[in-house]
């Protein structure tokens, strides 16, 4: 069969299909998002959904697996934190249909708040773990993970990293098998973890992992490359590629594909034959800790950096001392180019207004496109609401009069923001809670969520109204405002009402993302232009920092190709110099 080029994420989706998956659930998060988007290509064979959060996704997956369907759940590394409650349960219940959790770590923090190494979750939650190193292995390991899961009655963690997810390499495709759903059989002792049952399950789970550990010695996921050297390297995942790049066939390599439970005999046999033993892995010393526990001396994190992403140049310099030179240096500074809110982004109006009152506010950010705006701090999903309760208390205790304003997006509201809002209302704390509703999960590339009218499979579904949820909590006309954030006057009035109100206050800013297909269509041909006669060059409009706006020859200039006609800059101009140019 001919080969096709696929990203790791596409290959995992293909592997899921070949491996007989019938149920898939996820919450989007870079670098994992494209896995479920590609699973959706097989929607005739696989039911798939964007769940409101990772814990829900994991519970959907566990329910399906116990019910007898081969199922998968995907998330980014910090999303796995959200899902750990059901994942640890899955470690004890085991499965009926095979269950695979696909986790995408982000060494280098390309789009994340930390570099946490989720390999530690495998021993912690008692999961088997597979680590693919290229797209072919992504597909094959994913396909084979389901039979492994069923044979050893254990959930499997397929652990990826950004560079595996988002690099493309050649893949040989196969056929689908194993998709027959097993009958659901009542077994309360196995699937209901009451204390008495859980205690009985524990030794069974340990036995299952022991059985797998014994078989891991010979399972084809792990490979020894004996090149007759006196130097050996133990490695896994993408690090294997860097090792091969640097050393080729000049060292012996133990490449571990099944990295939990550890094949102790295989590791010991390999380690005992090497004069010098290197452990090459990104971030934490996960394999190194095991090798040392088995009693072997090795070179690992004392040389290989534990912070940041590896590449072949880093591995080469760490282990051989040889550095590939950066040959050329060009004189002159190149300005940085950080990501920014798009032209026409509804969040721009919100941030324009709140940043002008910033002195009176402490701003709690969250995870989403609005992370590109103004705020004092940002923790994790949902904390944009829940942290305001603690911050408001702390400010009150020190006599700080500033008001706390928290922000979450529509998808984050459903993910975990709503729980924080329960607390804000219950405690009647004096904060402003803003839902920046742009009708899509935008930052990760436009996924649907409970507030939208389509599902991942492209079918219509009912949308949940955020305002109705907020009113159901107990907020009324007195302390809710729903505004178009690009209407500066209305936005300012809502903020003023919030600042002057005592007790919890909700502002819902409602305007769809400018990149949504229907919005683009509606905005096609709309743009503003600058009347250079009237423009005084005061740069007030430039202050909104829109990519369509620049300053040239003493006047503002608007790129009609980028402008969406949102009109924010026109509202800012004191001289009426920004006027409609296109067809409105």
């Amino acid at each position, binding site marked *: 069969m001919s*080969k096709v*080029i696929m990203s790791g994420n596409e290959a995992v989706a293909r592997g899921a299909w070949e491996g007989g998956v019938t149920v898939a659930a996820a919450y989007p998060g*870079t*670098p994992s998002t*494209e896995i479920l988007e590609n699973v959706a290509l097989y929607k005739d064979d696989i039911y798939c959904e964007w769940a409101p959060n990772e814990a829900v996704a994991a519970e959907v997956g566990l329910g399906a697996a116990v019910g007898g369907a081969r199922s998968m759940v995907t998330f980014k590394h910090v999303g796995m934190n959200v899902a750990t409650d059901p994942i640890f349960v899955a470690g004890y219940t085991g499965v009926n249909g095979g269950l695979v959790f696909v986790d995408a770590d982000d060494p280098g923090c*390309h*789009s994340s708040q930390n570099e946490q190494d989720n390999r530690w979750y495998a021993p912690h939650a008692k999961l088997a773990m597979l680590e693919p190193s*290229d797209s072919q292995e992504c597909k094959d390991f994913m396909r084979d993970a389901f039979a492994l899961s069923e044979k050893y009655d254990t959930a499997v963690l397929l652990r990826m990293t*950004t*560079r595996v997810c*988002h*690099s*493309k*390499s*050649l893949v040989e495709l196969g056929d689908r098998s194993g998709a027959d759903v097993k009958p659901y059989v009542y077994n309360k002792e196995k699937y209901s973890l009451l204390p008495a049952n859980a205690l009985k399950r524990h030794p069974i789970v340990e036995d299952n992992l022991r059985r797998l550990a014994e078989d891991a010695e010979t399972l084809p996921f792990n490979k020894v490359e004996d090149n007759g050297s006196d130097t050996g390297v133990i490695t896994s995942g*993408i690090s294997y*590629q*860097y090792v*091969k*790049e640097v050393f*080729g066939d000049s060292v012996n390599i133990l490449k571990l594909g099944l990295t939990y439970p550890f094949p102790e005999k295989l590791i010991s046999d390999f380690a005992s034959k090497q004069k010098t033993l290197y452990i090459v892995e990104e971030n934490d010393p996960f394999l190194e800790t095991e090798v040392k526990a088995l009693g072997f001396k090795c070179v690992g994190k004392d040389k290989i950096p534990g912070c940041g992403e590896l*590449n*072949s*140049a*880093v591995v*080469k310099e760490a282990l051989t001392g040889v550095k*590939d*030179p*950066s*040959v*050329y*240096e*060009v*004189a*002159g*500074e*190149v*300005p*940085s*180019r*950080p*990501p*920014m*809110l*798009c032209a026409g982004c509804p969040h721009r109006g919100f941030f324009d207004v709140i940043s002008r009152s910033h002195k009176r506010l402490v701003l709690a950010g969250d995870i989403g*496109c609005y992370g*590109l705006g103004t705020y004092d701090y940002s923790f994790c999903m949902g904390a944009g609401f829940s942290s305001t309760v603690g911050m408001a208390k702390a400010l009150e205790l020190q006599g700080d009069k500033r008001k706390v304003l928290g922000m979450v997006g529509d998808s984050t509201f459903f993910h975990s923001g709503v729980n924080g809002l329960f607390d804000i209302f219950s405690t009647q704390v004096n904060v402003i809670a803003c839902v920046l509703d742009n009708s899509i999960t935008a*930052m*990760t*590339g436009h996924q649907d969520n409970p507030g939208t009218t389509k599902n991942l499979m492209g079918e219509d579904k009912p949308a949940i109204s955020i305002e109705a949820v907020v009113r159901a909590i107990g907020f009324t006309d007195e302390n809710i405002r729903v505004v178009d954030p690009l209407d500066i006057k209305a936005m300012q009035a809502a903020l003023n009402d919030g600042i002057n109100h005592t007790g919890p206050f909700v502002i819902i800013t409602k305007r769809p993302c400018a*990149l949504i297909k229907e919005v683009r269509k509606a905005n096609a041909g709309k743009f503003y232009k600058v009347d250079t006669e009237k423009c005084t060059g005061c*740069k007030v409009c*430039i202050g909104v*920092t*829109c*990519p369509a*706006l*620049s*300053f040239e020859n003493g006047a503002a200039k608007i790129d009609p190709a980028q402008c969406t006609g949102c009109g924010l800059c026109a509202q800012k101009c004191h001289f009426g110099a920004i006027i409609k140019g296109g067809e409105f």
Partner: protein
Amino acid sequence: MATTGILLCGVGGQGTVTFSNILTKGLMDLGYDVKMSEIHGMAQRGGAVTTQVRYGEKVYSPSLGFGQADIIISFEKCEAIRNIAYLREGGIVITDTCELNGLPILQGAAEYPHGILDELEKTVPNVMVVEANKVAAELGNVVVANIVLLGAMVKAMHLEAADWMGIIESSVPPKTIDLNKAAFNAGYAM
């Protein structure tokens, strides 16, 4: 075990993805092992983006370290300078003259370094400046600037043997096939 490294750089939305999709298909057509690495997430939000492509008889690492790129294709001239550390000694730079203002420039905190290409040409012996945006606009649509750059790169890297016309036909929207082919040929002729 020689492999060749290509680094594409530009700004989100400039068409690096289409470029690298066509490029990898061409390299596969030539019988090479190919790996490509790109970092998503911020792609549509005006941030700097890079894609790394490596090809040869057998490729292991999908990514490049400093001093490991044989050629840099830059869709925006500042981005060529930003990524110059990746170029190996004697490597080639092909860059568009396109200028796009990043956040610090839009905020007035920095100015666009208009003369930066002169500095590049002073430092790097093999620089090819391609007015891809201008050429694409003359052909009818600036969106095919990426394919103009592809044509120039195919010539610089002597990759003519692949069926580029066939690959373009199967990779772009049907209505734009002729436009993309013309863009490729214009780039190749430079």
